[in-house]
């Protein structure tokens, strides 16, 4: 029997029942009430460990690995279904919430305007958007997902998450996404408060080092030195592997060393790899990432939304040899961030430089880092550590190629839109790198969020939600607000199903 002094306070779901009037869990008549002095998450029923028929001791009914949006939705759904739930968040409390803390909105289907989303976004439109980005992802699962997205806002609101009224004129118009009031960290705070209030046992600083799925009940090893936790059912909601530099380098070569990771440093993919090693069927691609172009001075982790470079399309972009390599005017809409992330990741050395002059600079939001400035292109090149003659030649060639209509002629590659000469000093530059949001490798799940093996059978008692299974829906594509919806929708399903499995 595993003994975890002061670490896991087991909860047996059978001793608690959901009170629909109070909307909370109450001890059943005859069960021990709360132990005095312990908060709701530490309520310990009279028996210390529940025993299954096999004699295997369980530390909880449902064990949730992860601490972001998907994990919290799973934990709350499982707890509301009557299970004793333990959630293991790798991050410390102050940095909890995975990539969800950097998120902003959620893409939801709706047939009529709601207080949170304008207009309508019918299921067929949503599915069409999914097919556009995800290609041949599982169509049946996508339909289920889209239908389930319709009431996820209400479910989250019922669990404490606050959404921004779409009548708020500060919001950009959106008929597809509902915005979290205060953003993703506010959502994370609300869900943790709800989970804690419901009696989910939450443990921070709890990195999962290994999964053990072969001998009946799922178990995980946590922390250093390892402690083993056994559960009746397991929900894996631990995200991608973008924070594992070694794995990223194996997929991307040395370019990976130049990537900034935009989210949590705890998405090291250990549970994902363990699931694949246990025979789970991979979906998506190991060598693809969601990425955007960020200021090269972004911190190695957790830079989030603010390091994105807004104005790349307005000037020119050169590689470390001072040469242009792409049509800066090709993408000027919201997907320009992603387009440039991919382009820069594949540049020599995975770095590039955005160059503009004092006139162009007025047309975009500046980086949060100061521009590198000089009074001549040659000086700017010297400051940037690239060859002055090369950059001078590039800029001169570009300026000479500009035509009246905002495009270029006779320069390769062309700039098809927003082409303006770079002539007004001081000249400015931002270093550009690829900022990775998440990797695109996941495990196959079914409509109950069960993890499937390559042979199509389910891994017994193992469920997945969030980025670790998002490629089932999104493939390797990106849809604004889509990943948060995948996490919440499948989190809710995984939690409910895991609880049903655990309490069967």
């Amino acid at each position, binding site marked *: 029997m595993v003994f975890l002094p002061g670490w896991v306070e087991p909860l047996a779901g059978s001793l608690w029942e959901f009170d629909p009037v109070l909307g909370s869990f109450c001890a059943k008549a005859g069960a021990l009430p709360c132990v005095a002095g312990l908060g709701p998450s530490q309520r310990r029923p009279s028996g210390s460990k529940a025993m299954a028929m096999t004699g295997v001791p369980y530390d909880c009914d449902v064990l949730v690995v992860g601490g972001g949006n998907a994990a919290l939705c799973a934990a709350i759904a499982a707890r509301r279904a009557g299970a004793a739930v333990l959630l293991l968040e790798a991050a410390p409390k*102050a*940095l909890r919430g995975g990539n969800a*803390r*950097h998120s*902003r909105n959620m893409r939801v289907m709706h047939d009529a305007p709601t207080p949170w989303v304008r207009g309508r976004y019918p299921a067929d439109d949503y599915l069409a958007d999914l097919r556009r980005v995800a290609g041949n992802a599982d169509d049946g699962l996508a339909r289920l997902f889209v239908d389930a997205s319709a009431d996820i806002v209400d479910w989250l609101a019922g669990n404490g998450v*606050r959404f*921004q*009224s779409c009548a*708020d*004129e*500060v*919001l950009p118009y959106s008929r597809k996404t509902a*915005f*979290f*009031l*205060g*953003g*993703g*960290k*506010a959502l994370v*705070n609300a869900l943790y*408060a709800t989970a804690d209030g419901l009696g989910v046992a939450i443990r921070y600083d709890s990195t999962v080092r290994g999964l053990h799925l072969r001998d009946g009940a799922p178990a995980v090893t946590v922390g250093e030195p390892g402690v083993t936790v056994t559960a009746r059912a397991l929900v894996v909601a631990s995200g991608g592997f973008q924070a594992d530099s070694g794995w990223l380098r194996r997929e991307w070569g040395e370019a990976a060393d130049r990537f900034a990771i935009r989210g949590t440093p705890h998405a090291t993919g250990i549970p994902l790899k363990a699931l694949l090693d246990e025979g789970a069927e991979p979906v998506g691609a190991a060598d693809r990432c969601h990425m955007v172009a960020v200021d090269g001075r972004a*911190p190695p982790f*957790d830079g*989030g*939304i*603010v390091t*994105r470079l*807004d104005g790349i399309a307005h000037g020119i972009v050169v590689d470390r040899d001072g040469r242009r390599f792409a049509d800066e005017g090709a993408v000027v809409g919201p997907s320009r961030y992603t387009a440039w992330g991919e382009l820069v990741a594949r540049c020599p050395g995975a770095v590039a430089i955005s160059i503009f002059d*004092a006139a162009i*600079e*007025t047309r975009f*939001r*500046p980086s*949060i880092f100061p521009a590198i400035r000089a009074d001549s292109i040659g000086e700017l090149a010297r400051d940037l550590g690239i060859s002055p003659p090369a950059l001078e030649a590039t800029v001169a060639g570009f300026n000479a190629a500009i035509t009246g209509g905002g495009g270029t002629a006779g320069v390769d590659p062309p700039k098809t839109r927003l082409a303006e000469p770079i002539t007004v000093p001081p000249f400015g530059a931002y270093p550009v790198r690829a900022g990775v949001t998440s990797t695109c490798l996941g495990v196959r799940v079914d409509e109950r969020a069960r993890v499937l093996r390559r042979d199509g059978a389910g891994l017994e008692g193992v469920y997945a939600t969030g980025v670790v299974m998002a490629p089932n829906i999104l493939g390797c594509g990106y849809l604004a607000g889509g990943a948060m919806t995948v996490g919440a929708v499948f989190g809710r399903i995984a939690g409910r199903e895991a609880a049903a499995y655990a309490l069967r």
Partner: protein
Amino acid sequence: MPCADDEAGRIAGEARRALEICNACQFCDGYCAVFSALKSRSLVLAADLTFLSNLCHNCRSCYHACQYAPPHAFDLNLPKSLSLVRQQSYRDHVWPPVLRGRLPGAGWSFVAAVTLAAMALVALPAVLSLPAEVLFGRHDGPGAFYRLVPWGAIAGVAGAVMLWSLLAIGFSVASFWRGMGPAPAGAALWPALRDALRDAASLRNLGGGGAGCNDRDERFSQARRRFHHALFYGVGLCFAATGVATVYDHGLGWQAPYPLLSLPVLLGSVGGVGMVVGTAGLALLKRRADPGPVARSLTGGDCALLAQLFLVAASGLGLLAMRETAAMGPLLLVHLGLVLGWFATLPYSKFLHAPFRVAALLRAAMEQKHSPPLTRKRSLR
């Protein structure tokens, strides 16, 4: 810009850095007026710092929702940064200008010294001129208070100090208004003023977009807003009581003290209780607040104003309760001294937050009325 010394420059630089990160994020734009006002500015200039820092109600919702708050590498602490700039703006626009940069810091010692001096000013003449049996005697009937301190002295000294303070506040606000940069040309003043006063009266910006603010920690609550309402409307009722009493005395010839169920006493009692509850509640919230988003150096000045208002109200209520006993004389002197001290410190204390914030709300409403936020991008350079 207010860069009188390195510290001011550092404070402004830190606030600018924070606001530039906020402008790139904008996740908090549903919380309060600061973020919509920020959205229309690509660059944060010194005037914008003055404006935005006073528009901030220090509700701290943005801190608890901030993915860049410490221990993040960006170490973003917008409420703290803005409160430091705000404090700086009080000092930059103080009147008369000779005091600029010379006022003591944001601690409580200045307020305490002025209050004690005012109390001495009120008490000493009475103590020196009145025999003990008058000072500690029982007085009742019309004019009882004036047997201790003549009405002319009360009205003359308090009136003169109040006049000075109102004048100083007026000049300070005018200087602050200019300090926010030019107002949007052609913006309708009166509709904007109506919006600003409604926001000030309702403290909409302490609402956290609906569920309240983070008074103490990441949980939302309306407590701070309610305590502030109790204090604000309590002060209002006390001024109303004074006004009614003035009419009674000079218009109708009825001299104070007034009976318990009279209008001045009722207004003053309810107002006094509101002030006591409000100040005590706000102090308690301050004491229990998460220290993360709080600028420790400002707590002294904040608490000094709360203490002043608490003591003014408590001594007034005490006077009401004990006015027929021998304690009336000393209590009256204490109460009048505290009120005089409060009047005298108004233009030089945390009290300036009230007129400055209303002015900032007015500026925000004028910008809002002038044009919708997304079409007001200021050019870079």
